[in-house]
């Protein structure tokens, strides 16, 4: 909310600078977001009386005015503005004046006539939006610098009001808070209109059929109004507070709303059928054309103001077009009511019609302000647009009693225990009284009756906050708790994440954090590993289709980041994310497994003196995956890499699943050529994804240390010729399957194709290390062992040994 300080000054005398005031209010919970100095016009922008308006000899569009601008002799000003007439008081900028947009006014010759100044519009002076005509003022002494006209120079503070404090959404409310926390006196004038003519109740009938949604409704009748334009001072204030001036009647309702927090509405009473106002729930399917010209279809939950024909306004949200005040309106019906916050909020949100009025009703208006604001607006309208206010307020208040805030019990000891600071009972009562509450002492307990405008004070804790707030949170000491000494700890899941992070960074990969939201197509092609069995979840109210679904795998985000980095010239991308996939299981329940997702792309950066490193390949990726798994205590003695074509996003001939005891931990491989093509990612791209929880589940919990060997190993090589399609790892597996404790390691050290190996075949060479724990193996023993190995392989596979 925007608060012009000159307006505020009508209710409290602020003795301090705006910045000190802002600090004070911020520390009381009324956060000041901005302090803006406005209307600081050059003193050579004056008020001037037009003495005469004459035609321009050389132009039909221009007029030559003689203006008394306090310069001794009248000055001559040429203007193209419409509607100029003698005796008007206007804004005139004299030569040398600098206007808010930076222009400097000078004496000029306009088509042969000298002009010693400029007649200015509101917009030119940054005092409003109207640029169509010259700013006209009420009676002012000609020659007064405009900056000295009351209200022109001002300071506007921007106030951020929390949702619980609807009572702060007015000039009066802010003034009341200042009075409470600084101790200055609040001035609270309650203007009342002079009444004349027949009583309002003779013409107006009022019936409330939905008492819980409208516990209080007040109306006044104003006869013989003459709708007009609002004066400058009022338009200025409205615009400073952020509202646009319309006409005197509408402006008056907005003005009083801004000033006192009570939204008001004006009907053209002659268009209210039967002169009867009925406040009721809408009938489902009922229609009304609202002020903005849109036909609205209403529902049974909406509250409407109706006449005998049908709805004339949606309560607290927007008036109807048929009953709106127009230039021809003669009789006004002014409405001031308390509408239940929930109903206004539901309807305004459903119809997409936020408004200043709805904003205030949603946050609860002050029920005691309902008739007061009605009196104030009636008095103001008579001042601005004439008319006679009919005697009496027409009121129905079926739920008024329930609106009064109920007394709340405050145990001072409880307040002290919650705050951790000593405050006396008397001091607590003093602070609460400053806020307008009534306090009664009952033995040890204070019984507090909150003021009518504080619907938010319902519990003892609410009062404790008020006590602390008025005293200032700074006054509460800062004290570390006395607690039993216990150790803190990371959760196991998070320590796994940390470990994976360090391991992959050590492998030269960079961590990324990508959006969990993605588009449906990316999500479809990229289930990843953790999302392979999950159905995508749609976002019901996405900001765009780009973020229309929750990703099933972090890989969809990594792929997008990869594309972006490649576009920006990255030749190597080695990245990972430790993030979640999201989706629905077969049974329909939501799951969010934690994945470690990896992408390798392009060519390794040069190592030392070379043009570039080698292109990344499957072995690089497998190396990274092995390093990660090794960090969780899992090595190739327990892991199996199986070719897989099940991961649809991977190249079917270049993909593996990594398993332990038949349970898959993840997949790795080259990005599927179709995706490469669709995404237009040039260069080799490899992806891997592991389910972190599965990895951690299989990783050993403790390290078991083997004694160091005391005897030397003996190695024997083994070379075989096999079909091209043969899996080199099968030989290692097979030798391991012998489970002979004297076979220590098996390692592939050469893979060869070409002469003299026949085409379609390849030669694999392994080195087998034999060692016994308790002695040196003899040559004969090793030879026997090696022969067992050869026999085993010969029996299992179709292969040929090379000598």
């Amino acid at each position, binding site marked *: 909310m925007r608060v012009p300080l000159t307006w505020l000054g009508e209710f409290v005398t602020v003795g301090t600078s705006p910045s000190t005031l802002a600090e004070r209010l911020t520390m009381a*919970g009324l956060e000041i977001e901005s302090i803006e100095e406005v209307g600081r016009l050059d003193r050579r922008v004056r008020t001037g009386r037009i003495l005469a308006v004459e035609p321009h000899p050389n132009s039909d569009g221009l007029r030559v005015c003689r203006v008394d601008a306090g310069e001794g002799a009248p000055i001559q000003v040429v203007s193209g503005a419409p509607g100029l007439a003698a005796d008007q008081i206007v804004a005139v900028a004299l030569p040398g004046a600098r206007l808010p947009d930076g222009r400097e006014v000078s004496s000029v010759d306009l088509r042969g006539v000298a002009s010693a100044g400029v007649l200015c519009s509101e917009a030119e002076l940054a005092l409003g939006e109207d640029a169509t005509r010259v700013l006209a003022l009420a009676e002012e002494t000609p020659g007064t610098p405009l900056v000295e006209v009351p209200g022109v120079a001002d300071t506007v503070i921007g106030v951020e009001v929390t949702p619980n404090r609807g009572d702060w959404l007015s000039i009066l409310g802010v003034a009341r808070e200042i009075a409470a926390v600084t101790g200055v006196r609040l001035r609270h004038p309650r203007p009342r209109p002079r009444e004349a003519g027949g009583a309002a109740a003779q013409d107006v009938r009022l019936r409330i059929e939905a008492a819980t949604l409208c516990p209080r409704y007040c109306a006044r009748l104003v006869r013989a109004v003459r709708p007009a334009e609002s004066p400058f001072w009022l338009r200025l204030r409205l615009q400073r507070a952020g509202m646009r001036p319309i006409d005197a009647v509408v402006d008056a309702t907005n003005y009083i709303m801004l000033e006192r927090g009570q939204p008001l509405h004006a009907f053209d009473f002659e268009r209210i059928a039967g002169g009867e106002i009925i406040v009721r729930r809408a009938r489902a399917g009922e229609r009304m054309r609202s002020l903005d010209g849109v036909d609205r279809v209403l529902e049974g939950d909406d509250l409407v103001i109706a006449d005998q024909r049908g709805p004339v306004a949606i309560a607290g949200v927007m008036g109807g077009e048929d009953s709106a005040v127009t230039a021809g309106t003669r009789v006004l019906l002014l409405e001031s009511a308390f509408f239940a916050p929930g109903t206004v909020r539901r309807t305004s949100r459903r119809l997409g019609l936020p408004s200043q009025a709805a904003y205030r009703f949603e946050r609860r208006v002050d029920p005691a302000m309902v008739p007061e604001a009605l009196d104030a607006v009636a008095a103001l309208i008579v001042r601005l647009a004439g008319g006679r206010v009919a005697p009496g307020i027409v009121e129905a208040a079926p739920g008024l009693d329930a609106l009064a805030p109920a007394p709340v019990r405050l145990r001072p000891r409880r307040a002290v225990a919650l705050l951790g600071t000593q405050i006396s009972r008397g001091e607590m009562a003093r602070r609460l009284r400053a806020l307008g509450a009534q306090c009664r002492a009952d033995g040890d307990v204070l019984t507090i009756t909150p003021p009518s405008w504080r619907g938010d004070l319902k519990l003892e*804790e609410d009062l404790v906050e008020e006590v*602390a707030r008025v005293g200032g949170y700074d006054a509460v000491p800062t004290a570390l708790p006395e607690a039993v000494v216990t150790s803190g*700890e990371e959760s196991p899941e*998070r320590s796994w994440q940390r470990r994976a992070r360090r391991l992959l960074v050590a492998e030269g990969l960079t*961590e990324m*954090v990508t959006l969990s939201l993605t588009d449906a197509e990316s999500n479809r092609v990229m289930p990843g590993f953790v999302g392979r069995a999950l159905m995508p*979840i749609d976002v019901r109210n996405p900001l765009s289709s780009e973020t229309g679904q929750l990703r099933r795998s972090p890989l969809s985000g990594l792929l997008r980041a990869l594309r972006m980095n490649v576009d920006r010239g990255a030749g190597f991308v*080695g990245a990972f994310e430790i993030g*979640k996939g999201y989706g629905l299981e077969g049974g329909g329940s939501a799951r969010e497994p934690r994945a470690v997702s990896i992408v390798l792309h392009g060519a390794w950066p040069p190592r030392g003196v070379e043009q570039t490193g080698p292109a990344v390949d499957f072995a690089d990726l497998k190396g990274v995956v092995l390093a990660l798994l090794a960090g969780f205590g899992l090595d190739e003695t327990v892991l199996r890499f199986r070719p897989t074509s099940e991961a649809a996003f991977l190249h079917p001939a270049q993909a593996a699943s990594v398993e332990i005891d038949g349970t898959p931990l993840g997949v790795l491989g080259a990005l599927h050529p179709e995706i490469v093509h669709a995404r237009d990612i040039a260069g080799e791209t490899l992806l891997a994804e592991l389910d972190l929880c599965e990895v951690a589940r299989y990783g050993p919990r403790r390290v078991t240390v083997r004694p160091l060997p005391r005897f030397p190993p003996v190695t024997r090589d083994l070379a075989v010729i096999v079909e091209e399609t043969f899996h080199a790892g099968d030989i290692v597996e097979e030798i391991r399957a012998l489970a002979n404790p004297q076979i220590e390691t098996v390692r592939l050290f050469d893979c060869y194709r070409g002469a003299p190996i026949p085409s379609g075949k390849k030669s694999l060479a392994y080195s087998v290390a034999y060692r016994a724990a308790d002695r040196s193996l003899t040559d004969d023993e090793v030879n026997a062992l090696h022969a067992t190995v050869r026999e085993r392989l010969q029996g299992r596979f179709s292969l040929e040994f090379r000598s």
Partner: protein
Amino acid sequence: MRAELAGLRESALAEIAACHSEGELEAVRVRYLGKKGSLNAILRGLGAQPPAERPAMGALANEVKEALVAQLDARGGALAAARLARGLTENRVDVTLPGRTRPRGHVHPLRAVEEEVVDVFVSMGFRVAEGPEIEDDFHNFGALNFPPDHPARDTQDTLFLAGDDRLLRTHTSPVQIREMRRSKPPLRVVVPGTVYRRDELDPTHSPMFQQIEGFMVDEHVTFANLKGVVVHFLRRLFGPATGVRFQPTFFPFTEPSAQFDISCNACGGSDAPDPACRVCRGRGWLEIGGSGMIHPNVLRAVGYDPEVVQGFAFGLGIDRIALLRYGLDDLRLFYDNDLRFLGQFPF
């Protein structure tokens, strides 16, 4: 034979002296002292000598051999020393050539800051808990005292998911509910996690960001203790001289509620703010997080008796801390994942 030996000695010594490499020297050694060398060739004629002269001839031959060996060793030593000396000036390494590096990896700044913040709380005895990001109305709102149709929900612009009662959590507070329902006080828990709001990605907003939330529940935990823990934490993170202030605000799930700020670390701070400071916009204070005493309705929702236990909770944005920590003003850098950005974080 004597003359032969003398001749051999003379010519061998001359040749040794003329050697300029260890290879040449070895060739000389083989030629004179090898199995098939000249000395042996002469000695093979020893049998033809008169027996009385044989010992003298043998001794002479030995003498010649020893002299040659001594000279070979000396010359060899000198040549080896010269070679080593030459080696010290040759084979220079160009130390300015590039090192043979592996690519360096980097931790994402959001994760680095999150770890750091978590570590501070763990060191203060807090236990870490996590919870689901896909939540329901009860955990995200209802149990946290957000009434239906209350404007407080506007401050949590929510992304709703297809299906009954599914949404993306707008804060980490649902984990507060889950942890309190799961266990009994005393509790000291800290909750890091990803949260969502219906915001476009721009320099100051993101549909997804990182939060950390902490709470403590016990019989005597006070608002003063809340201030104590938060101030202690902020000074650990931002330095011991950091100014901290608490101001009243509103959250449905705490009462009293407090926003906490630190004095701006980019300008003179709260004592002498720079009106042109881009970070604090001249205010001298930076909003860091929200906190308060857990609302009695929240305690009741998890089955605690607010007359018996009380506690505080606080929450703050990891993204915001990271922006401040690295002097950045655009949140998008964190979610763009440009390697040229990420590569600037050294660990």
